[in-house]
C-alpha cells in the first residue's frame, strides 16, 4: 500500500506562532516520518502573542514526553514551577476558600468511592474537609513538593502535578525544538489568503514581503481572529457567553514576594475573577471580567490593588468571546488554539485543548484529498471535548451563594446545560458522580469543586450504610496520618526547584 504515501499532504503551513503554532510545529516535526512533509511556520514579530504565566493540568506532561523533552531542561527554559492544584477563594461564599487538587482524595475501598466514606465520616466530624485526604492538597498547603512514586503501594503514588511557566518562553523553547527538526520559520505578515476557485481549499498565503507560500494543509494558529478558519472559510462560531459571561482580561506580571507557591490561586471578584500564577522569577496575574458590568478602569484598579508585589510594566488588555467554531477542521484547514475556540482559563485548560487538537489530528492524519470522513470525526471529538470542559467551568459560576453583585446574581440563577444540571442534582441527592467515558475531568475533580462550593449531598449513599462508623474513622485517620507523614518528609517547593531546575533569572 506504499503508493498511498504519495497522497499524504507534502506542504504543511502553520500560520501564527505562539503556544498553539509552536506546539503544533514541534509535535508534527517530531512524529511525522522523516521527509514525509515540509513544515513551514509563518509568524510576525509585530503581532503579539497572548500569555502571562500559564497554568496547566497534568496532561501537559504527556505532551512533553511525546516530544521527548527533558523536564528539568524545560522548567529551566520557561522559569517553570510545579503546580499541585488550584486554590479557589470567595467562589462558593465570600470569605471561604477550597483547594481543587490534582489526583484523587483518599483510597476507594471495597468498590465504593472514597468520598462516600468521607461523607459518612463527616457526620461525626463536622470540621473535616475532604482536602485533608488529598496528598496533593496537603503538600500544596505546606508549600512542599516531591515527585510521585511509581510504586502504587507508596502513598506518594497519589501525587499528581502540572506546571506553571512562561508561555512565551515555552513557545520559544518549542521553536528551537521544531527548527532543529527541520521546521522552516518565515517572518512576515499575511496580506492575502488564496483559495481554489472551485473547491474553496486554501492554496497559498501571500506575505507583506511579496513572498507567496503554497501549501496542501494549513493550520490556523492566528488567535481569536481566525484569519483562515473564520475570515477566509467563514466557519461560524458557537457562542457560549450566556453561560460564561466574562469577555475581557487585564493581565500583568508582578515581582514575587514570599515563597513560590506550588499552586494557582483563583479569587472570585465583583464581576469575574483574578488569577495568580507563580513562576520562578515573578508572578503572573490577570483579572477576567464581564465588560458589561465592570469598566476597564475599575477592572485595572481592582487588579493592581490585589497584586502582592510591585507591578512589572502596565496591564495588557485581552478581549475574548467564549465558545468554539462549529467546525474546527474545514476543508484543508485546522484551527488550533484560540482560533478554534476559547474557554476562560479557570481550570487551566487552554494548553490542554491545544494539545487535544494536535493529538486528535495526528491520530486521524488525513491524505492530501482531506476527505470529509476524517474531518467529520475530528470535529465530533473536539466539540465533545469543548462541551465537557465547558460544563465543568460553568459549575464554578452556578454553584455559588454569592448575591453581592449583578454578576453573581446572574450566574447563580442562570439556566445551565441539561448535562450539568443532571449531574448537580445527582450529587445533591446522595453524593453520586457519573463520569462520561473519555471525559477530561474525573470524579475527584467534580467532587472537589462541588463540595468546595457547598453543594452538600442530602443523604449518604445507602450502600455505605452497611459499613461501621468506627471502621471508617479508623481507616480515614490512618490514611490522613500516612499522608501527613509523607508530606513532612518532602522538601519545600523552592528547595526542590533550586536543586532540580533553577533558571537563576531575575526580573
Amino acid at each position, binding site marked *: 500500500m506504499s503508493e498511498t504515501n504519495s497522497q499524504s499532504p507534502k506542504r504543511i503551513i502553520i500560520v501564527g506562532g505562539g503556544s498553539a503554532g509552536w506546539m503544533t510545529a514541534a509535535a508534527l516535526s517530531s512524529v511525522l*516520518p522523516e521527509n514525509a512533509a515540509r513544515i513551514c511556520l509563518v509568524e510576525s514579530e509585530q503581532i503579539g502573542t497572548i500569555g502571562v504565566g500559564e497554568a496547566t493540568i497534568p496532561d501537559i506532561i504527556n505532551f512533553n514526553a511525546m516530544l521527548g523533552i527533558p523536564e528539568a531542561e524545560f522548567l529551566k527554559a520557561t522559569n517553570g514551577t510545579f503546580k499541585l492544584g488550584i486554590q479557589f477563594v470567595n467562589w462558593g461564599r465570600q470569605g471561604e476558600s477550597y483547594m481543587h487538587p490534582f489526583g484523587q482524595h483518599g483510597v476507594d475501598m471495597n468498590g465504593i468511592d472514597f468520598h462516600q466514606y468521607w461523607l459518612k465520616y*463527616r457526620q461525626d466530624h463536622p470540621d473535616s474537609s475532604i482536602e485533608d485526604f488529598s496528598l496533593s492538597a496537603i503538600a500544596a498547603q505546606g508549600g512542599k513538593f516531591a515527585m510521585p512514586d511509581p510504586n502504587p503501594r507508596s502513598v506518594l503514588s497519589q501525587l499528581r502535578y502540572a506546571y506553571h511557566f512562561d508561555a512565551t518562553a515555552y513557545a520559544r523553547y518549542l521553536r528551537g525544538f521544531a527548527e532543529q527538526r527541520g521546521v522552516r520559520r518565515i517572518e512576515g505578515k499575511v496580506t492575502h489568503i488564496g483559495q481554489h476557485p472551485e473547491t474553496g481549499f486554501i492554496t497559498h498565503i501571500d506575505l507583506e514581503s511579496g513572498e507567496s507560500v503554497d501549501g496542501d494543509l494549513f493550520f490556523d494558529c492566528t488567535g481569536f481572529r481566525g484569519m483562515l478558519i473564520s475570515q477566509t472559510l467563514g466557519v461560524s462560531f458557537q457562542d457560549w457567553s450566556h453561560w460564561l459571561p466574562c469577555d475581557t482580561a487585564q493581565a500583568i506580571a508582578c515581582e514575587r514576594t514570599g515563597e513560590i507557591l506550588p499552586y494557582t490561586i483563583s479569587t472570585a471578584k465583583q464581576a469575574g475573577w483574578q488569577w495568580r500564577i507563580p513562576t520562578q522569577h515573578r508572578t503572573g496575574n490577570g483579572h477576567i471580567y464581564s465588560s458589561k458590568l465592570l469598566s476597564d478602569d475599575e477592572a485595572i484598579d481592582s487588579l493592581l490593588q490585589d497584586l502582592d508585589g510591585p507591578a512589572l510594566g502596565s496591564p495588557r488588555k485581552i478581549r475574548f468571546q467564549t465558545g468554539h467554531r462549529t467546525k474546527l477542521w474545514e476543508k484543508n484547514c485546522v484551527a488550533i488554539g484560540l482560533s478554534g475556540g476559547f474557554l476562560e482559563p479557570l481550570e487551566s485548560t487552554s494548553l490542554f485543548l491545544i494539545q487535544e487538537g494536535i493529538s486528535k489530528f495526528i*491520530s486521524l492524519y488525513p491524505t492530501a484529498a482531506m476527505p470529509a470522513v*476524517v474531518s467529520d470525526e475530528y470535529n465530533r471529538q473536539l466539540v465533545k471535548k469543548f462541551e465537557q470542559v465547558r460544563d465543568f467551568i460553568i459549575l464554578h459560576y452556578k454553584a455559588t451563594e454569592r448575591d453581592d453583585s449583578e454578576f453573581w446574581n446572574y450566574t447563580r440563577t442562570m439556566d445551565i446545560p441539561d448535562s450539568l444540571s443532571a449531574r448537580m442534582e445527582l450529587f445533591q*441527592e446522595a453524593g453520586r458522580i457519573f463520569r*462520561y467515558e473519555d471525559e477530561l475531568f474525573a470524579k475527584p475533580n467534580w467532587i472537589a469543586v462541588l463540595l468546595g462550593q457547598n453543594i452538600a449531598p442530602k443523604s449518604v449513599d445507602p*450502600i455505605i450504610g452497611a459499613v461501621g462508623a468506627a471502621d471508617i474513622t479508623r481507616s480515614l485517620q490512618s490514611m490522613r496520618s500516612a499522608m501527613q507523614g509523607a508530606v513532612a518528609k518532602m522538601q519545600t517547593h523552592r528547595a526542590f526547584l533550586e536543586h532540580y531546575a533553577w533558571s537563576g533569572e531575575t526580573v
Partner: protein
Amino acid sequence: MNSPSPAVKTIVVCGGGLAGHMATLSLVNALGSDHHIAQVNASATPPADDIYGGATSPESYNFLRGLGLDEPLLMLAGRASFSLGTHFRRWRPGQTWHQCHHAPFPTIDGTPLIHHLTRSRTPLSEVLISAQAALAGRFAHPPADPANPLALAEYGYQFDPLDWVRLLDARIETTRVERLKAETITVQSQVAGRTVLALDDDIALEADLIIDATGPARTVISQTGSHFIADRTVNARISRQAATQIGQPSRVIEASEEGWTLKVFPQETELSLAITSPAEPNETLKGFDVELGRVSEAWQGNCIAIGHAAWTIEPLTPAPMMLLQRDIERLLELIPTTAEANTERREYNRRFRDDVDHAGLFHEALLRQEGAMNSAYWKSAAGGEPSEKLARKLRQYGHRGIVPRYDLEPFNNEDWIILLEGLGKTPQDYDRQADRLPEAETQNQLRQMKATIDNLIPRMPPHHIYVAKLKQYLEKKRHV
C-alpha cells in the same frame, strides 16, 4: 446532612433465575440491615434464562466474585469451563473467525497494531493468542508476566444457567432475605413511591422499590405504564446433551438458512440453542418465541425491570450477561434515597438506554450485511432502521482503521476490530505514523509475534485436561 432511616426500606425482587438471584444477592450484600429485602417466586427460573447464552465476558470476573461466585467455586460446584470467546463458523460464505477476548492490542513503535497490519496486509487473527488458542482447543490462565504473550489473552466462563441458579439460590438461603411464593402478582396501588402488590389476590405486600426479574413475562413492569418496544420476534429451541469430555474453550455459532445455532461447552453438558424465525401456527417441533427489543423505561414509578424483563437480545455474544451485570451495577449505584427518586430514575433510564442501544450496535453489525440469505429469519434480522452510530463506525473503520467510541460502550475497541476484521472489512488506508518504521522491520516484528504464538500454543494443555487438573489442584487445596 443527616442519615435518617432510609427512604427505601423494603425492596421486593420478583422472580428467580439468574437476574432475580443475582439482584437479590447483590442487594443483600450491599445494603445494611435497615433494608428489608424479600424475593417472590425465587424457585421459578424463567425458561428464557437459556438465552442469556451461557457465557460471560472478562468484565464479569469481579462482579461474580462479589456474589461469592469465585473461580474455585465455579469450577468445582458450578460446572463452568473457560471461554476465550465465540467461534463464528460460516457466518456468511467465507466468514469464519474467532470473536475472542483480548487485552488492549500492543502498539508497534507507538502506533496502534491495526495500522501495521493494514500496511503489511497481515491477518489480525494470526497475532491474537486467544484466537489461536481457542482454534487449537487449548487453554491456560493468562500469566501476570507481561512479557509472556499469553498475558494478552482474556477469558470469561461457559456455563449452564441452571447450575449457577442453583449456586446462587444456596447462597441466598444463608442470608436474611425473606422468600415468598405466589401464583399471580398484581400491582394493587402505587402512591407516592410506595407500591402495594397483591400476591395471589389475597396477600398484600408493601414495597418501596420493586425489582422486576420475571423475564419476558415482565409481570410487574408491564403493569406500570412502561411499554415494550419490540424489534422483531425469534424462536429459541434449547437442548442439553450429556458430554463425557469438555468441549472447546469457546462457544461456537454456525449460521444456516433458517437462522443460527449456538453451542456452549460447560462441564459434563453440551448446550445447544437454535435461533430461527417464529413458529408457524401448526409447527410443533419449535421451542418458544421471544420478542427482541427493550422496554421504553426500565425504571418506571418505583419498579425497576432488569435482565430479560427490561430487554431481550440474542446471545450472539456475551452481551446478555454483560447487560444483566450492568443492570445490577446501575441499580446498586442508584438505590434511591427519596421516595420520589426522580433524579436517580432519570439517570438510570438514560444509562439503560445507552447500554442496550450500544450493545445492539455490535449485533446490528453482525446481522445487517450485504448479501444476507433470503430466508424469513435473515430478512427480518437485516431489516429495520440502520443506526447512524454504527454507520459512523463502519465509515471510519473502512477509511482508516479508526473505531469511534461512544460513552461507556459494553464492547471495547478490540472487540470491534476483531469483529470488523471477521466480517471481512478492511481499512482502505492506515495511519502514516506507521511509516516511521521501515516496512521490512514491521513485517519482521509481526512475524516474530506470530512465531512466538505458534511456538506457545502446542505447549498449552487441551481445555478439558486443563480444567481437570485445575479441579484436582483446587480440591487438594480445599482439603489442606
